[in-house]
Every structure is written in C-alpha cells, then in structure tokens.
C-alpha cells in the first residue's frame, strides 16, 4: 500500500513575491499551487486549462488574510481612522489658509498679495528643514508618535514581539 505524501503548504515570502511571472508560473506548474495563484494565472493567460484540479489546491488562509480580516485588525482600524481625519484636517487647512491670506483685514483676513506670498513656501521649507532634521535625530529616522500615540505603542509592541518570535 502506497502512502500518499503529506499535503504541502507554501507561504508567500518576499523572495517569492519578487520573482518574475515566468518563474512563478514554472513554480506553480511543477508544484502544488495555492488557490489564489491558480486563479491569478487563469486571469493572466485567459485560458481555463491552467486551473489545477480541485483536490490539489491547498488553501492556506492564515498566510494571506483577506481584506476584511485586515480591516478587523484593531491597530489598523485606528491608523486608517486617524489618517482619514488627518487628510481632512490638512486639506481644509490649505484651503482656509489661502483664503485667509488674500482676504482683506477688515473681513478677517491678512490682506496679503500674490507677489508677497509667492516666496513663502520655499522660505517655510528652509525654516522647516532643521526642525525636521532634529526630529528625525530624536526619533531615529522614523516619524514621531504625534498621530496616535497609543496605537503606535501597540504597533511597536506587536513588532517587537514579532521580532522576538521570528527565528
């Protein structure tokens, strides 16, 4: 009696993701492919004959979480929410500041002219660059925890735990 080989599971690593489509195709043809890769090849080539048999598909859901699972991740929810709020704040500030600069003073503005304000963005960059350099030195090249400190603490804790558990 011949014992069937155990099912093989493949995890998507960075090295596999950097392969060319041709390399991926030969890899999928020679080995048991996952469900997502077989569907992708069928879409790229347009021929349904590329699809492997149903019994050969090894679905490893833990290796590739779905978008819904990603959205249920609590730190990701907080980062997406804060990014959404920050986008609104930044865009509205750009509009309000421009309107404020060109509005007359008696109407609540600054009564600036186009000619005088045209040089302010480069000057702000010149003034801002030492501040940015100092903050990058302070936080080691990463962004400062201004956005959502509790989420970043949790995210950094998860990353540290992942580094400790990864061989």
């Amino acid at each position, binding site marked *: 009696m011949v014992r069937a080989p155990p099912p093989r599971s493949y995890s998507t690593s960075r090295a596999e993701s950097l392969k060319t489509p041709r390399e991926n195709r030969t890899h999928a043809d020679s080995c048991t492919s996952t469900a997502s890769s077989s569907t992708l090849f069928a879409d790229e080539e347009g021929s349904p004959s590329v699809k492997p048999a149903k019994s050969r598909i090894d679905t490893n859901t833990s290796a590739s979480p779905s978008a819904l699972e990603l959205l249920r991740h609590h730190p990701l929810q907080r980062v997406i929410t804060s990014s959404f709020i920050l986008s609104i704040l930044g865009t509205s*500030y750009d509009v*309000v*500041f421009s309107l404020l600069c060109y509005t007359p003073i008696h109407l609540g503005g600054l009564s600036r002219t186009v000619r005088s304000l045209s040089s302010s963005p480069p000057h*702000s960059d010149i*003034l801002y660059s030492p501040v*940015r350099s100092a903050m990058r030195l302070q936080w080691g090249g990463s962004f400062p925890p*201004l*956005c959502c400190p509790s989420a970043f603490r949790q995210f950094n804790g998860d990353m540290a735990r992942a580094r400790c558990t990864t061989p």
Partner: protein
Amino acid sequence: MYFWPVVYLSLPILNVIARMFVQPVGDDGVERLTPAGDTILWLGIGTVVILTRIASMMFS
C-alpha cells in the same frame, strides 16, 4: 494630532495682529501695514507654517 487645534486657532490671532498694525486706507483702497506690523505678521505666518509642517509630519 494635538498640533492641529493650535494651528487652526492661530489663524485668527494673525488677523488680530494685522488689525493692530493696520494703517488707514489710502486712495487705492488697499490696506497697508506698518513696517513693524508687517515684520511681526510675517513672523507669525512663518510660525504658523512651521507648526503646520510639524503637524503634517504624522502623514509620513
């Protein structure tokens, strides 16, 4: 995140500074500031812009 209320609340302060140093309107109808007021207003605009850039660092 906590810089944004400061940034938004500093905009009316700039207008208050401009009102403090505004000169009477001339014949052309354009409001002008005194030289000292102009300098202080530009310093205020620079401060607000730097605060905005610091608050925008959370995007990166």
